[in-house]
Structure formats: C-alpha cells, structure tokens
C-alpha cells in the first residue's frame, strides 16, 4: 500500500516531471526545440561556478520563506504574509547594517536577529488577532503585505535615505558576502546565507519533530479542540506559531539585505519571495527538508530561465508556466490520492 510518507515523496516528483513535460510540449507547440531549451536552463543554473553561485543565492531566501509558510501550515495556519515579513526583515536588517558600528562577530548576528524579530512582530499581529478576536489570518496577512511594502518604501525615502530610492550600502561588518566565497563562485552574488538557511531548516525540523513544544504546536494544527482539551493553550500556540513563521520570513529578508543586495531599494511591487514560499512549502510537503529541496528546484529554475532567451531563443516566461503546472499538480494531489486509493481497493 502507498504509505503517506511514500506518497508525499512521489507526488512532488511526479508533479515536477509532469511540469517539465508540459513545458516541453508548449515549447514544441511554438516551434522551439525543448531539448535546447532545457539545456539552456540547465546551463543557466549549473553551467559554471558563476551560475551555480547565482542559483544558491536565489535558493537562500526561498528556503526561508518556504520554511515560514511550511511552519505555519504545520501548526494549522496559512501565512500568506511571508511577503510582508520579508520586507520588514529586509528593512530592519539594512537599518542595523548602516546605523551601527560594531565588530562583525556582533554586527552580523545582530542584524539577522533584528530582522527575525521584525518578521516575528509582523507575524504577531495576525496571530494575536486570530487568537483573541478570531479574525482569519489570511485576510490580515494579505493586508499586512501592502502595509509592509508601502511602509518600507516610506522608510527608505524618508528615514534611511534623503529622498532617494535606495539606501546606502551596509557596513562590511554586517555583510554576508566575503571575497573568498565570491571569488570561488566566479564573482557571483552568492553569500554565506546558505549556512543560515540550512541552520534554520534544521532548527525547524528539530523544533517540530523532536521537542514537546513543537508537538504541542502541531497538535493545535491537527485539532484545536482536542489540543485545548489536552491542556494546551491554543491562543498562545497560535500567536507563537505565527511569530516563529514570521521570524523565518524576516530572516529571508535579511538575506536579501545583508547578502544579495547589501542595501534596500524602493519596490514598485512585491518581491514574490513570500508568494513563492507558498509554492515551495506546498511542493516540499511542509517539511524542512522538502522545502529546502523545493527551494533549490525553484531557485535553479528561476536563475536558469534567465539564460533561456539568449541561449535557445525560448522566452524565459516558459519557466513560469512550468512552475505553475508543478503547483497545479501538487495541489491536485488530493485527486491523485483519491484515484490511487480507488485503484488499490479495486485490486483487493
């Protein structure tokens, strides 16, 4: 019989394969060569050290936003607000990065911690409203995304710079980039954030799977009433879960602020890191390891797609279609699950 565990592994893999097949069909349909297209995609993501570095760079924030959404989901919450939490984390990290003069050993961790705290605060609001007033977190987090976007733009223009559309770069002591790492990866934008991302993935796994507290948080996700009956404080759990989730997304913002860009610029629209995090978590079956792998997949698809037009003539939007199809199939896994179960029954 298909165990749940096996199923959780099979569904994403099949979905990815189907997504790539659909992408190939579309390329054929429009007169492009799918082999050339995918070869360009592969070379664009892993072709040499430079592009491999860029792929890692793109994967880092996706792991963290994926963890944020996955963590919330495991505790029964939908965090659509990772996008906004990324913004507050990014602004806070850059603020610490440019305003303080500290040795690197304190400066860098401080910047990341402040970003995590800012993200947690942004997660606290919907958590608190849900716990005390029963306001659905989806509505609140969506609204807070816009609040975060426009507030951060305001802060950049009026507080962190003098009417400019970007801040000055952060101090070297807060930077996640080092000359050695950049050099190894052909002067790409890669930075040490991947260590942070991996640590956070391990932290999430440990917290959820190996601690009593994590079990309590999950219990609330399974059944609020049962959890309440078992003596778990549901309200507190909801708030804490949203805050931890927000902290992960806040750190994702810090990765952009301290690693990739080392400053923050005014955004005309969302970064999509938070929304992609939802896809990452979905594909990763809401586990730490799964989300990390899914983030790597999406990171390489996104970076690789940049090389598709020049190398093969295929528009880079094709990858958006592939990603959409993958999500579509993962989301319809319920249907697949149902069909398999029916087939199984018929067998017996």
């Amino acid at each position, binding site marked *: 019989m298909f165990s749940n565990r096996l199923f959780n592994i099979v569904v994403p893999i099949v979905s990815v394969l189907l997504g790539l*097949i659909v992408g190939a069909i579309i390329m054929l349909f429009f007169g492009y060569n799918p082999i050339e297209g995918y070869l360009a995609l592969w070379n*664009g993501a892993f072709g040499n050290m430079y592009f491999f570095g860029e792929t890692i760079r793109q994967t880092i924030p996706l792991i963290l936003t994926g963890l944020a959404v996955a963590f919330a989901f495991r505790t029964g919450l939908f965090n659509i607000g990772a996008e906004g939490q990324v913004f507050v984390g990014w602004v806070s990290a850059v603020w610490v990065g440019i305003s303080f003069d500290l040795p690197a050993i304190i400066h860098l961790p401080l910047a990341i911690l402040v970003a995590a705290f800012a993200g947690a605060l942004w997660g606290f609001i919907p958590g608190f409203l849900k716990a005390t007033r029963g306001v659905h977190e989806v509505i609140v987090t969506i609204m807070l995304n816009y609040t975060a976007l426009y507030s951060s733009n305001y802060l950049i223009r009026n507080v962190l710079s003098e009417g400019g559309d970007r801040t000055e770069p952060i101090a070297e002591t807060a930077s996640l980039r080092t000359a050695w790492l950049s050099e190894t990866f052909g002067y790409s934008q890669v930075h040490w954030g991947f260590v942070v991302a991996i640590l956070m993935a391990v932290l999430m796994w440990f917290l959820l799977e190996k601690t009593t507290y994590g079990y309590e948080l999950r219990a609330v996700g399974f059944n609020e009433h049962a959890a309440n009956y078992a003596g778990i404080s549901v309200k507190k759990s909801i708030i804490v879960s949203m805050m931890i989730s927000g902290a992960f997304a806040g750190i994702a913002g810090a990765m952009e602020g301290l690693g990739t860009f080392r400053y923050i610029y005014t955004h005309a629209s969302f970064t999509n890191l938070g929304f992609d995090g939802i896809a990452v978590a979905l594909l990763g079956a809401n586990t730490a390891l799964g989300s990390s792998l899914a983030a790597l997949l999406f990171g390489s698809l996104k970076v690789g797609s*940049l090389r598709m037009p020049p190398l093969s003539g295929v528009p880079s939007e094709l990858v958006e279609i592939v990603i959409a199809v993958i999500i579509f199939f993962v989301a319809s896994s319920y249907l697949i699950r149902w069909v398999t179960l029916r087939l199984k029954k018929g067998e017996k």
Partner: protein
Amino acid sequence: MKNKLLLMLVALFAAVLVLGACGTSDDEDTTGDDTPETETDGGSEEEPEDETEGIGDFSVAMVTDEGGVDDRSFNQSAWEGLQAFGAEHNVERGATGFDYAQSTDAADFLPNLNGLVQQDFNLIFGIGFLLEDAITEVAANFPDRQFGLVDSVAAGDNVASITFAEEQGSFLVGVAAALATETDQVGFIGGVTSDLIKRFETGFVAGVKAVNPDIDVRVEYAESFSDDQMGRSLANSMYSSGIDVIYHAAGAVGLGVFTEARNRIENDPEAGVWVIGVDRDQYDQGQQGDHNVTLTSMVKRVDVAVHEVANMALAGNFPGGEQVIFGLEEDAIGVADTNTEAFTDEIATAVEEWKQRILDGEIDVPQTDDELEAYLEAL
C-alpha cells in the same frame, strides 16, 4: 496493477494536453505583439554565411529591467532597435548577432549582464536607470567590453550613457496643449520629483507659455511611478478645477490619468478633456467608444538611440565614457500625430514650426527651474 497505473498516467497526460492548450492561448497574447517583426525568431539556428558578410564578429545584446521585453514601452522599444540593427546588417538573432536577456527582479541584473559577457557579446545595453549600479560594476570587471546604459549616466570609460532631450519633446507637446486648451488651463503630473522629471516639467511649461503666456499651468507630483489611483485622483482634481489638457510624465501613474479622462468622456462625450502621453504613443490608452482622449504623446525613441549607438560601436567610434544626448535632431524625440481628430493640422503645423525653431537653435529649451524663470522673463 501496472496496467492501472499506466491508465492513470494516460488520464493525467490527457489533462496535461488540455492544460497545455489553455496555457497556449495565454501565451499567444504575450508573444503576439512581437512576433510579427520577429517571425524569424523560431529559426534562430545560426546561419554561418550571414556572419561573414554582415558585421564580422561584432555582436550586441541588451538586458531589460523588470518590465521585460514585451512591456509595450521602454524595453520593447529598445529591443525593436536591436532588431532594426540586425535587419540593417542582415544578421540573425543569436550569439553572433543580437539578443536580449530578460530580468524579472533587480537581483537578475547582474547574472543577466554577466551571462551575456560570458557569451562574448561585444556591446551590452542596460535598459533603464535601474541598471546603473549593475552596469557600473560589470563594466569595471570587464574593461575590454563595451556597455551602454539608457536613461541614466554611469561611470566608466567603456560605458556610453544614453539620455534623451525630453525637454524638447515636452516643449512641443506644451505647444500642442496650449493650442488645444479651451479653458486656458493645463496641467502637468510628474512621477517622482527628480532632475529627470523636472526636464519634462520645465519643457512643457515653456512650450505652453511660448504660445500664450496667459495660460495657467498647474504642476503636481504623484511621488510614485506606479500608483495609478494617485494619478486618477490628481487628474480628477485637475479636470474638476477647469483644466482640460493634462500632460503626464509618471509611468503607470499616468494610466490613472487616462482612466479618469476616459470616465469623464464616457459620462459626457462633450466633456472635452485630453491627456498627453509620454515615452511612447499612448493613443491606444485613450480610446473610449468612438472617442479618443489622447491628444498626442511625447515619444522617446529608445529604439533609434540603441540602434544608433550600436552602429557607432560597429564603426569603431563607440562613445565610451561619454554621455550621448538624443533629441529632435537625431529623430529620437518626437510628437505623435495619431489622433488626427484632436491633433489638428493647425496644431501639427504649429508644432512643426516650433520644432524647426528648436532645431535652428533659436530656442534653448529650459531644463531647470532657474532656466525656466529666465526663459519666461525673456518672453
């Protein structure tokens, strides 16, 4: 069991095909606009014989900003310029001719530029001022390559900075506005306060006042390039106060201005409100029923500029380290005359006259507040 699994896969595949069909209609829409000219795209397999008779081993590429290559504006125009360059020299799209890389995010600028450098393109354009930092960094790393930056000025001996004399075009649409207004009140809506948008403003005011110094020009800034609601409310307040022509230099904020004007025309076909578009001919934005509210547009021919600089580089006189300003003289700035009903022959003739006077050096269009003040006093 195996058979059933297979059956399942077949069923899924059918779903895939249906889905694929859905996806394509969507896709057609996005690729639709650029396929007519780029019909050759599909057959981008390099034809080596072209290489020899065309432009030798010279190749040119561009990196879009977040708008992408089919944004119906800036980036698309630049890409059309490269296509024209390719057509002129009979080279195909690809690594030996001309090509583009598309950015969806600011983090993509560097990988795109570096990717094109690795593909050995000789000249690489960054389209839009957002790429300034990225171009500066890559140009410093590869001093033997040539780079072009559109709409901003970057440091580096191997970077040609392409800017436009927007004040000239704004002056001419100011002339048109002055002739079209019936209430003797016109408005200007700028995006974010900056030296760049200032040039649009001063040129426009100068053009209006040149025709009739008594016309009132109200100037507002949205402090955004994306907030179309803001554009709508500014336009609403302007039209309500009696202004009948608004010139916007505010990107997507301008879409709100168009919406407001179209709504007014829909409610009252005799409302007589007009919008002047910017950067490209925004005629299609102004259509409301049988009526079109787009009086004219200040057209920035990014394609002309990109084409020209590519030709300069090919001929060996690449303007590295210089700022190249494209204006009326180069035909890189123009005034759209699509809406013949509103943009009458009378207006067209007047605009042509003033254009000649600018070309003859008779008028030096002001670019700053101080210059504008001096200009107005001399009237």
